[in-house]
């Protein structure tokens, strides 16, 4: 095995697929962080990106179309010791699963979301994803796309994600850095990854990505100071039609994590999260009567 975290499953993505760059960056990031294989869970939805967990030698949960986030939510809340990374396509996370994406932003759960953004539904032969521009006709489409595109980073900012970044499969080293930082970030990290679909997207090709992608200026500081997010500035960069910037757009460590919020209303959560509860210990008659005292009838 070329990488420590590579599984022995044959990778069946198309030759030249952008996913190779993504999974390679994951192997490298996991290695750099020395993640425990048992304590790392890669969660995915459906589609080409959905296969990712099987190619990685950590635990993997390959779920339903659009539902990777709810699974990851249940896993992370129940066992906060686990490092949870979600892989999802643009159709998966922003189409069928968009509601969960919005809700995740409201919670700031400490998980990392990797968006495989190739602007098409590859595994079902190239239909338009929610990220595809209006009036564009990729080769698999019979007619030009008549629906507007959603900008993943803008949506993520609006929903309240606290680490918002973009990478591309063209630059696995930069992407690795982003993933490392994303996993280390306390809160939800969202990384939009621009990648080609070599089979069905003849517009957003390797060359297109190369010609259009540019790293954010080094002087740009994404860190949120004094509780105030300067989203306008980020929006401006995202509105630039000539350039697709990569790098970290926003990093907000001021916002409370979901763990802290649960802890506040459930003081025993930190010591005994759901996965750590001793279940074999039955409630006895006395404890039952104390717990539900107010329901007992006081016979006069």
């Amino acid at each position: 095995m070329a990488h420590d975290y590579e599984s022995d499953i044959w990778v069946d993505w198309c030759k030249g697929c952008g996913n190779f760059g993504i999974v390679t960056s994951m192997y490298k990031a996991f290695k750099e962080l020395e993640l425990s294989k048992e304590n790392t869970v890669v969660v995915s939805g459906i589609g080409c990106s959905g296969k990712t967990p099987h190619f990685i030698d950590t635990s993997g949960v390959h779920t339903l179309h659009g539902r990777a986030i709810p699974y990851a939510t249940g896993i992370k809340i129940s066992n906060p010791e686990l490092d949870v990374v979600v892989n999802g396509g643009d159709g998966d996370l922003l189409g069928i699963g968009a509601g969960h994406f919005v809700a995740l932003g409201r919670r700031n759960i400490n998980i990392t979301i990797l968006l495989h953004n190739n602007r098409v539904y590859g595994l079902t032969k190239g239909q338009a994803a929610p990220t595809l521009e209006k009036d564009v006709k990729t080769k698999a489409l019979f007619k030009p796309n008549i629906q507007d595109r959603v900008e993943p980073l803008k949506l993520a900012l609006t929903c309240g994600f606290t680490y918002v970044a973009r990478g591309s499969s063209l630059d696995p080293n930069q992407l690795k850095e982003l993933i490392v930082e994303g996993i280390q970030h306390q809160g939800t990290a969202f990384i939009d990854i621009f990648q080609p679909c070599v089979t069905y997207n003849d517009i957003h090709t390797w060359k297109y990505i190369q010609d259009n992608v540019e790293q954010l200026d080094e002087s740009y500081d994404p860190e949120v100071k004094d509780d105030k997010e300067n989203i306008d500035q980020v929006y401006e960069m995202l509105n630039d039609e000539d350039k697709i910037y990569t790098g970290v757009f926003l990093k907000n460590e001021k916002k409370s994590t979901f763990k802290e919020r649960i802890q506040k209303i459930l003081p025993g959560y930190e010591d005994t999260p759901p996965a750590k509860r001793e279940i074999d210990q039955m409630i006895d008659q006395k404890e039952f009567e104390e717990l539900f005292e107010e329901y007992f009838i006081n016979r006069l």
Partner: protein
Amino acid sequence: MSREDLLLIIGGEQGAGLETTAQILTYALTSKGYGSIADREYHSNIKGKHSYVHSKISTKTYPRSLTYPIQLLGCMDAETLFTHHEDVEDGGFVVYDVSIEDTNIDDIPSISHELKSAYKENDIGNEIIDLVHYLDEEKDIVPIPLDFQGLLEELQENFELSSSQASRYVSSILIGSVSGLIGLDKESLDKAVERKFKEKEVIAEQNKFFIEMISSKIKDEHGSPLKLKDSKMNKEKRLLVSGNDAVGMGKITGGISFQSYYPITPAADESFFLEEHGEEKNIVVIQTEDEIAAINSAIGSSLTGARSATATSGPGYSLMVEGIGWACMNEVPVVVTYYQRGGPSTGMPTRGGQSDLFSALYGSHGQMPKIVLCSGDHEEAFYDAVEAFNLAEEYQIPVIHMLDKFLANSVVNMKSPDLSQVEIRRGDIGGSKDYKRFADGPISKRAFLGQEVMWYTGSEHDEDGNVSENPGNRVKMQDKRMKKLELAYENIPDDKKFKYFGPENPEFILVGWGSVKGVCLDTIEGMDCAYLHIWMFSPFPTESVKDILSKCEKCIAVEHTHSPLIKRSVAMNTGIIIDNEIVKYTGRPIYLMEVKRAIKDILDGDNRKVIEHGP
């Protein structure tokens, strides 16, 4: 002469204090050792529409069903009297506010056109006063008009309250008048009020004063014509609970540590219960963005080793079924508490029904094993809520625990559970070197995320949990999963799958499931008749049910559906066709007198009786 039992209805506008009234009366009555069942009927509405509580109080049993006619009707408004007057027994009592006497039925916008025209057909006269005269003269019903306004003013003066403050005490007028008529003593009422207004001493004092004032006034003027005998029941420990409460208690006892939910009637109260009482046990209750997230986050939680569940009703379950399929495919123990209501679609959100049995059994694509168990009363609901987790973990499959609105929202004094009868069984748990999640079936050793490296996928998979479409592997894995249901059929004892009540060779057998249990048990009392209660539909107790039903010539299905699903289920599993059915699909409870009448017609030759009583 005092009474052994009493049926009463208290009605009024939704949001006008009806629940407080019913609660305090029930607290007081049950503290005297009386048996009580109270069914709450309400619209999908926050304020303004008609709602009512229908109760049965007994001095010698714990009532399991309701019936008509009632002996006492307490009206908070005119609509209550227009709606329920036909259900008052001849010689019964009606308490109402004197100020509604000139209210005309045509002026009440919340009364339906159907009710208005049905009322007018009787030519009674359109105003409450006409109706009161009619009830008095034609049916010997005693009207008890009370001057609500005057009474409230008296209270106002006594405690120097503003009129808006005093108006909140309307419920106490009904409590006082009902307790006067049934001869409830001051001590039990005072205790009930204190219980309700625990930390609000002043409010409690004022309520106690007001209730006593009205109760004495009623006693002075009318005596206590509905006086109840002393309770004949022993002093065993009892709880006053709704079905939602009973399930909540069961889940906490059963070791739940994660519950996800999306708000829906009539399931949401259970999640509230867990939030309120689960802190000591560190139970995480998460309100998710939809039911899809509710089931899938519960499944995710279960993968980490937590006992996880979600609670919903029909529309929510419809959204959950894809997740249930994933859980079956990946052998995940997860519990779904499914409170049925009137369907299809939005149907009747606050009314009951039993039309979702097949939705629970088959509502997801593909063939998969799951356990479906159905509670028939509050006590069963408690024990089933614990057992659901045990079965889910033992067989590593989802368990759908079915209840309905009738059970969820009715309040009874339930026997305190005997926890020596309850156990926790977690099944085969543990990891190993070179762990494979799906090895050595049918039931594999289950390790949790965080213990070993493992893979899960909704795709057909091999022992490692990696995708495989190899035909041989497919057969092996599908056999492995389906075999678990066979094991459950063999290993779960019959007395956990069904119950048989009544004589051995009866003239006929009622066949039912879920909340019809109570009314069926009351029906067979004193008759040459048995009741077969199906508790588990998957795995179905095929051989035993075949045995019982094939020996009896007349079987009658009783169910809250248009076309009884229990008939179809019995036919599918045993080949036996149940020829007769009593059905109700108005969304209201099945009442004892209706079943008795319907059975008579069936014994006279009818095959199908549709019953419809109740407003």
